[in-house]
C-alpha cells in the first residue's frame, strides 16, 4: 500500500514532466530538436500512459489495499502476491512501457500507446490484481456489498475485457472498422476503469470521513447500474460525423446524454451525503474527494454536451477536448485518488500525513486545474471559430498560443501542489504519541467505519 502510494506520486511527477515538456514544445517547438526521444509525439504518448498506468493505477491499488479489508472484513489474498503485483506493474509495465515508447516502439492508439509486448504484462497484472482483491469480496459473500465494492468489482473485471479489445482489435481490423473498437476503448478506459475506481474511492471516503452513511443506498445502486449500462455505449461519440454507421453514432450520442443525467443523480446523492456534516473543513482528504465529485459533475455534463452533434461539429479536434480530458483525469480522477491515498495514509499507524502540506497541496492543485481547464476550453472555442470560418489554418495555431502559455504556467501550481502532497505524505507525525494524533485527527477504529459502508438493510 505504502509502496504503491509513493510509486504513484513519483510516477505522477514523471508523467507530468512528459506533459509539461510536450506542452512547452507547443510554445518552443525546437526544444529538444534532433533528440529522437524528446520528440513531441513520444512525450505525448508517455504523458497519458503515465497518468493512467503510473499514477492512477498505482493510486488505485494503494487505495484498494486499504479499502478492501475494511469493506470485506477480510485481508487481501497474499502479501507475496502484492509484491509481485507491485514489481510487475511498475517494472514490467510502466517503466519499460515508457522507455519503449521513447525508443520508438508504440502503437498510435489513444489510451493504448504502450506497445503490444507491454500489453501482455498489463493483462497479466490486471489478472493478478483481480486475484489479489476479488476473492475477499466473494468469501465475504455478496449479500451486503457496499456500492464501493460494486465499483471495484466492475472496474477490475470489465477492464480485463475492455483492455484487450482496445489494444488488440484495431491491430487486426483495418481502418474504420478498427476505429469503431478504438472509440469504445477510449471511452471504456475512462468509463469502465478510471471512473469506477475513482467513484469507489469517493463512495468510500465520504461516509468514512463524514461519519454518516451515504444519503441513499438505493440511488447509489441505481447510479451504479445505469453507469455500467451507459458508459460502454458511449464510445462511438469520439467519431461523430465519421463514416461509422449513423445509427451507431446516434445511439452513442443518446447514451452520452443519458449518462450526463445519471451522473447528476450520482453526484446529487454524494453531495447530499456531505450536506452539513461539517467535516469538509477539517478533513482534507474529504475535501479532495468532494472537489473531485464536483469536477466529476462538471466534466460529465460537458461530455454529454460535446457529444451532441451541433456542439461536436465545432469543438471536436480542438483544445476544448484537451480541457475536458484534463478536467476528467486531473480534476475528477486525480482529486479522488489523492483524497483516497491521503485518507488511507492517515490510517497507516506509522505513516500519517502532514496537515499543513496537505492543505497547501489542495489549494495549489485547485488553482492549477482552474487555470488550465478554462484556458484550454477558451483555446478550443477560438480554434473552433476559426476552423468554421475558413481562415488559414495557422490562425488557429496563433490564437491558441496565449492559452497554451497559461497551460504551461499552470504547471507551476500543479507541480508545487504535488510536491506539497509528497511532502505531506512523508513528513507526517509518526511513531510516538499515536493515540494523541488519532484523537487530533478524529480517527476511529475500523469497526466503526464498516457499518456505515454496509448496505442499508
Amino acid at each position, binding site marked *: 500500500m505504502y509502496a504503491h502510494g509513493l510509486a504513484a506520486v513519483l510516477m505522477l511527477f514523471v508523467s507530468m514532466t512528459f506533459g509539461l515538456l510536450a506542452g512547452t514544445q*507547443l510554445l518552443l517547438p525546437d526544444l529538444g530538436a534532433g533528440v529522437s526521444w524528446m520528440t513531441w509525439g513520444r512525450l505525448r504518448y508517455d504523458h497519458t500512459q503515465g497518468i493512467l498506468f503510473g499514477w492512477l493505477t498505482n493510486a488505485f491499488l494503494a487505495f484498494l489495499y486499504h479499502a478492501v479489508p475494511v469493506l470485506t472484513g477480510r485481508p487481501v489474498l497474499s502479501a507475496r502476491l502484492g509484491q509481485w503485483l507491485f514489481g510487475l506493474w511498475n517494472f514490467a509495465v510502466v517503466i519499460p512501457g515508457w522507455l519503449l515508447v521513447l525508443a520508438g516502439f508504440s502503437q*498510435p492508439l489513444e489510451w493504448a500507446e504502450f506497445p503490444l509486448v507491454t500489453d501482455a504484462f498489463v493483462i497479466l497484472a490486471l489478472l493478478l490484481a483481480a486475484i489479489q482483491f476479488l476473492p475477499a469480496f466473494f468469501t465475504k459473500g455478496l449479500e451486503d456489498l457496499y456500492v464501493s465494492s460494486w465499483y471495484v468489482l466492475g472496474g477490475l473485471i470489465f477492464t480485463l475485457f475492455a483492455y484487450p479489445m482496445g489494444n488488440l482489435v484495431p491491430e487486426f481490423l483495418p481502418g474504420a472498422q478498427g476505429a469503431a473498437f478504438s472509440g469504445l476503448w477510449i471511452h471504456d478506459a475512462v468509463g469502465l476503469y478510471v471512473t469506477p475506481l475513482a467513484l469507489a474511492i469517493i463512495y468510500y471516503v465520504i461516509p468514512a470521513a463524514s461519519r454518516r452513511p451515504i444519503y441513499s443506498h438505493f440511488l447509489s445502486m441505481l447510479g451504479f447500474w445505469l453507469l455500467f449500462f451507459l458508459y460502454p455505449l458511449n464510445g462511438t461519440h469520439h467519431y461523430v460525423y465519421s*463514416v461509422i454507421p449513423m445509427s451507431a453514432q446516434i445511439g452513442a450520442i443518446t447514451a452520452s446524454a443519458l449518462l450526463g443525467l445519471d451522473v447528476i443523480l450520482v453526484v446529487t446523492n454524494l453531495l447530499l451525503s456531505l450536506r452539513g456534516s461539517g467535516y469538509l473543513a477539517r478533513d482534507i482528504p474529504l475535501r479532495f474527494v468532494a472537489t473531485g465529485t464536483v469536477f466529476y459533475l462538471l466534466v460529465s455534463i460537458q461530455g454529454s454536451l460535446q457529444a451532441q452533434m451541433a456542439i461536436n461539429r465545432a469543438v471536436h479536434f480542438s483544445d476544448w477536448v484537451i480541457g475536458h480530458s484534463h478536467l476528467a483525469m486531473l480534476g475528477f480522477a486525480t482529486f479522488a485518488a489523492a483524497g483516497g491515498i491521503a485518507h488511507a495514509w492517515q490510517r497507516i499507524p506509522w505513516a500519517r500525513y502532514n496537515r499543513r502540506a496537505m492543505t497547501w497541496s489542495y489549494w495549489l492543485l485547485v488553482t492549477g486545474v482552474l487555470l488550465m481547464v478554462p484556458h484550454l476550453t477558451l483555446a478550443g472555442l477560438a480554434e473552433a471559430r476559426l476552423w468554421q470560418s475558413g481562415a488559414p489554418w495557422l490562425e488557429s495555431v496563433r490564437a491558441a498560443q496565449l492559452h497554451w502559455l497559461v497551460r504551461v504556467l499552470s504547471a507551476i501550481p500543479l507541480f508545487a501542489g504535488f510536491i506539497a502532497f509528497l511532502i505531506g505524505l512523508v513528513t507526517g507525525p509518526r511513531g510516538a504519541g499515536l493515540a494523541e494524533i488519532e484523537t487530533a485527527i478524529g480517527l476511529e477504529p475500523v469497526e466503526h467505519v464498516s457499518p456505515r459502508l454496509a448496505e442499508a438493510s
Partner: protein
Amino acid sequence: MRALRMSYIVASVAGVLFFVLSVTLLGVWPARVLQEQSRNMAPENPLGLTRSEMRGRAIYAREGCAYCHTQQVRFTEADMKRFGAPTLAWETRLDYPHLWGTRRIGPDLSRQYQTHPADWHFAHLYSPRSVVADSVMPTYRALFNGAPDQPTQEARDLVSYLDSLGRARELAGPEGEARARKGCNCPDDEMPQMAFHSAVINANAGKARREGPTPALPGNGDIVRGRELYQHNCASCHGPRGHGDGAAGSLRPLPADLSEHQYSPARLSFVLENGVAGTAMPAWRDWSLDDRAAVAAALRELSVGQPEPGIPPATLELGARVYRDNCAQCHGMNGGGDGSAVPELRIVPANLQGVRPTLAQSIRVLRNGIEGTQMAVWTGRLSEAELSAVAYYVRGFYQGEPR
C-alpha cells in the same frame, strides 16, 4: 437470503450483458457494416501502398503524427471546404491500426497527395519553421543526416507515405466516385450524399496548380498589413528582404529572389491564387483578397528598381533570333510561358509577360540555369554576345506597369 443471492447473480449476468451489448452494437455491428461498405464502395482496383510507403506509415505511427493530425475528413461543411471529400471506409482498408486521430493541432492530412513537393516535405520535416514561420510542428531531424537535403531512408519513406494519402481516391476519379455512390446504394442517406457532391477530392488551399483563375485584387493594398503578412508567411523562404535567402535554402528551385524581379499585378494575383506548381511555393487561396493585395503591395516594395538601358536595335534583333531558336518552344513566342514543350515540363517555364527579371538576374539565370527546373545552363551553347542579347530581349515581353 437465497433471493438476494439470486439477484446478485442476475445483476452480474446483466452487467456482462451490458458490456457485450455495447461491444456488439458499437463495435461488431458497425465493423461489419463498414467492411461491407468498404467492399462495395471501393474502386475496382484501388491503388495500394508500396513497401516504402508502408514503412513510412510505421514512422508516422511511431512519431505520434496522428496526435496532431487527423486522417479523417468528417462529413461536415467546414471539413469539406477545408480538406475535401470526407473519408470513406475503403480508403482506410490498409490501416492496421487506423490513424484517424482525435486532435488537430495541425491540419488533416488525408488529402496530402500531390499537395506539397518532396523538397518542401524534407525542409518541413527537418525544420518546419524554415518553411512555415509560425508553425509549431516538431522538428524531425533524427530522420536526416544533418541537413534537409540529406534525408535518410526513413525520411524518404515518410514523405512517400505522406504523398500517398488520398491517392487511391483521387486516382479512382469520377468513375470511382460513381462506383462508390452505386455501391453505397443510399440515395436517402444525407451524409454520404453530401460526400458524393463534394466538388473536389482535395480542397487544400495551399495546393499549387498549373492552371486556375486570376481574381482581380483590390487596387491599393494596406502596406503595413502586407509587410506583417510577408514576415509571418513568406520571409522564411524568400528572406526578410526578399532576396530568396530565407531559412529554406534546401528547396529546389530556390525561392524566387523577389528583389530581382518585377511582377505584374495579374501575375501576383495568379501566383497567390495558384502557387507555383511543382515548386515549394504554395498557393494562398484561403487568404482574403484584401490580404493578398496587401502582400502584393509589400512585394512591390521589395523589388529594386533599375534604370532601363537603351538597347541598340541590332542587339534586340539578335536577341529575338536567339530566343526564337532556343527559347520559344518552352517560353512561348510571346514569352507567356506557353511554348509547345510545356506539357512535358515538370515546372512551367517563367511567364515573362508577368515576370520581369533584372538584367543581371536574366544573365545569371542563363549562365547558371535554375536548379530543380528544366531551365538549363546556356553558356556552352550561346556566345557571350548572344547570351546578353537574349537576356535584354526577354525583358521586353513584360506587360505589367512600367517602372
